[in-house]
């Protein structure tokens, strides 16, 4: 097996398992500590030592797998010492317990550092490493720390002659000579000859025995170690010789051997990459993103052609127009196909929850049944990565605050086991993810009282929906006490902000006593946006459609001036701040009178603003380009796109515009 010094992180992102690793390692350390404290060096209890060893061993294995080399190195020493104690090669002294306990403390520090909570105390760690090393020197153990692979720099050979005679019982270890031949054929071109001399008559043959032997001429520049590696599992179960083929060119006139197709031998023989498999290949996301970008450009070019074609005479240019409409269809399909490459099942996030819920429930002393549905619903990788934290937060909250303890549930006549549901589904161009529980639900009176206590504007007159929204207010926490599960209530406003940052929305519904449900609605991808194009002066700008509530042509009496600058518009019974876009972005020659233009009512984060534009141009899907990458960040603008006629249109960042407008009003 190849053993890279650094666990390669390509492909599957191992960080998704880190939390579990941290949790279990912390548990392991607790267990080690407890066992060490019980341990009497005079009469060491074998099972206790075993348990301590296993904990160290698990931490080491995980740390090495997940790339925490410091942690792995430290536990390795510890494990070596414990292994010696376990096997009796090392006696346990009184001060060893102390040393081991200090090692446990140091490991906690290293673990915290790996988790990103502060830095490990390097001097303590180094001192302990030295102490452990010194302790180990008392009885040297085989140098297992350093890599033992002695890579003899075998000169490239033209090939190898391999004689392979498995023992009769080879099958009994689950090994299969065909697998070995198949693997050899991946190292190079193989000519395989089968020796059937040992094959008995049918009557005498044991179906479970291996009677065959093989001679393989492997042509290719592979090293002997690579071949030995193929046979490593059957060492001791076969007779094997690997000799370099003579330097003379392979004699084509040699007696041809029966060639066995090793399954995939038809691949280009010299290929070093045996990992690619018919089913799937791994591609860097950078490549996919550049592909998506290119397709985006293609879509724009296509739209440009379409616009030009609209001016052509349909009769004279029939064939051209037909070709163009075909191009239109193909482009669209291509775009969809390319976008689907970036799509991943939401299970990538969901799969972390069963373990998390189990652990948390145990910690909180609650009984919880987790029901997942729609795990296969796909959405953009970028969205998936950024939805993980908010979802984790919501699940923790539901467990901690939403669901009651067994006693409380009994008292209210509910099933002792609470149910937590996580579901995902497609709805139109969106994905809807819901976290629901059948717990106590939100307490309206408590929410309002708490909000008032925290200095958040809230009155008894709030609608239920508005009251539920209070939990998203910054600095709001429903838990009277801070718990180590849900933290300090700093999260819900961040959750909401993160989701809105993805162009999504959060909704809450709650039935007191029967539980609550938080629904997140997200766009399927961040690369394409449903937008409304509006004109301001000579500029065309894109307003994200999910933020648009309505558009209206106001009557003069609907407009009120608060000061020189600030204006509001009365929409039905509500006053909404009015923000002329030309003013915000300094666009010349735009309509300045609200009643002569059009107001587009935007909503984000529970607040509204009416932006003044000259006219509505249309509604379209746009390919989002980063303005930051190509220019710099501009307040109030989330990105740019290229229109069908080749012009650049800026995309409004609705939440930020609303924030800017409230700031302006306050000023």
């Amino acid at each position, binding site marked *: *097996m*190849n*053993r*890279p010094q650094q*666990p*390669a*992180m*390509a*492909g*599957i992102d*191992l960080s*998704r*398992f*880190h939390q*579990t*690793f941290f*949790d*279990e390692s912390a548990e392991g350390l607790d267990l080690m500590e407890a066992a060490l404290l019980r341990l009497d060096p005079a009469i060491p209890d074998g099972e206790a030592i*075993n*348990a301590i*060893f*296993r904990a160290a*061993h*698990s931490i*080491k*294995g*995980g740390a*090495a*797998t*997940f790339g925490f080399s410091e942690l*792995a190195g430290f536990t390795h020493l510890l*494990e*070596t010492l414990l*292994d010696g104690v376990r096997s009796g090669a090392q006696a346990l002294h009184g001060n060893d317990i102390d040393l081991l306990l200090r090692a446990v403390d140091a490991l906690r520090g290293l673990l915290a550092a790996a988790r990103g909570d502060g830095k490990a105390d390097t001097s303590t760690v180094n001192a302990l490493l030295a102490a452990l090393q010194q302790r180990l020197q008392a009885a040297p153990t*085989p140098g*297992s720390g350093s*890599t033992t692979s002695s890579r003899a720099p075998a000169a490239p050979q033209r090939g190898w002659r391999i004689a392979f005679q498995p023992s009769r019982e080879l*099958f*009994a*270890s*689950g*090994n299969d000579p*065909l*697998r070995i031949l*198949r*693997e050899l054929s991946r190292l190079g071109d193989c000519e395989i000859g089968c020796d059937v001399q040992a094959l008995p008559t049918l009557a005498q043959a044991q179906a*479970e025995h291996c009677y065959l032997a093989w001679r393989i001429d492997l042509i290719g520049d592979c090293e002997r170690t690579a071949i030995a590696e193929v046979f*490593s*599992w059957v060492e*001791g*179960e076969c007779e094997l010789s690997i000799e370099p083929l003579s330097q003379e060119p392979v004699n084509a006139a040699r007696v041809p051997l029966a060639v066995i197709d090793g*399954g995939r031998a038809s691949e280009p023989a010299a290929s070093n990459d*045996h*990992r690619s*498999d018919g*089913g*799937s290949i*791994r591609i860097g996301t950078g490549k996919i993103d550049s592909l998506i970008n290119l397709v985006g450009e293609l879509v724009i070019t296509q739209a440009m052609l379409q616009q030009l074609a609209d001016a052509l005479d349909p009769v004279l240019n029939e064939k051209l127009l037909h070709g163009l409409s075909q191009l239109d269809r193909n482009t669209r399909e291509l775009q969809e196909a390319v976008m689907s490459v970036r799509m991943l099942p939401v299970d990538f996030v969901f*799969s972390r929850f069963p*373990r998390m819920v189990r652990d948390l429930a145990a910690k909180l002393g609650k009984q919880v049944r987790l029901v997942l549905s729609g795990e296969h619903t796909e959405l953009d990788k970028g969205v998936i990565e950024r939805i993980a934290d908010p979802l984790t937060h919501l699940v923790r909250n539901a467990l901690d605050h939403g669901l009651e303890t067994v006693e409380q549930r009994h008292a209210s006549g509910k099933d002792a086991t609470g149910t937590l549901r996580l579901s995902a589904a497609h709805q139109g161009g969106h994905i809807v993810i819901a976290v629901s529980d059948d717990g106590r639900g939100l307490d309206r009176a408590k929410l309002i009282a708490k909000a008032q206590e925290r200095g958040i504007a809230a009155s008894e007159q709030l609608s239920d929906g508005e009251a539920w929204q209070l939990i998203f207010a910054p600095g709001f926490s429903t838990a009277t006490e801070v718990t180590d599960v849900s933290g300090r209530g700093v999260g819900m406003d961040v959750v909401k902000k993160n989701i809105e940052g993805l162009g999504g929305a959060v909704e809450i519904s709650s039935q007191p006593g029967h539980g609550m449900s938080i629904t997140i609605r997200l766009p399927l991808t961040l690369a394409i946006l449903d937008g409304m194009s509006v004109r301001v002066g000579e500029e065309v700008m894109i307003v994200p459609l999910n933020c648009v509530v309505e558009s209206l042509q106001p009557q003069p009496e609907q407009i009120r001036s608060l000061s020189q600058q600030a204006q509001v518009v009365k929409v039905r019974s509500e006053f909404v701040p009015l923000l002329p876009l030309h003013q915000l972005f300094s666009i010349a020659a735009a309509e300045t009178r609200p009643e002569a233009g059009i107001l587009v009512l935007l909503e984000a984060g529970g607040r509204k603003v009416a932006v003044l534009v000259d006219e509505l141009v249309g509604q379209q899907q746009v390919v989002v380009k980063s303005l930051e990458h190509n220019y710099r960040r501009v307040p109030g603008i989330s990105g740019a796109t290229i229109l069908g006629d080749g012009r650049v249109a800026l995309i409004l960042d609705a939440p930020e515009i609303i924030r800017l407008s409230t700031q302006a009003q306050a000023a």
Partner: protein
Amino acid sequence: MSERILTVDDSASMRQMVAFTLQSSGYEVVEAEDGLAGLAAAQREKFRLVLCDVNMPNMDGIALVKALRQLPDYRYTPLLMLTTESGQDRKLEGKQAGATGWLVKPFNPEQLIATIQRVLG
């Protein structure tokens, strides 16, 4: 129908990593947290391949391999052990118990998949 693999490991993060990796390659995975649970799972159904850690409470990997080889259903099933570099002698012990081969920790998902695909062809 996809092939079902049993993974036995007392470390949840390793189990999750193995299960997730194999699942993303289209295998179905059943997890067990120690040798006894692994043996029980193997008795309930016949898996195409078993991956097991060596150091586990309640029946270690070597005892599990031995026990599995006694089961008629598992006489020829590939049984792979997950060992650490320091466990060279345990490899041999495992081989004697009837293990097919091993995968050396630390390994990354690609190596795991490559090994499984080599064995299952």
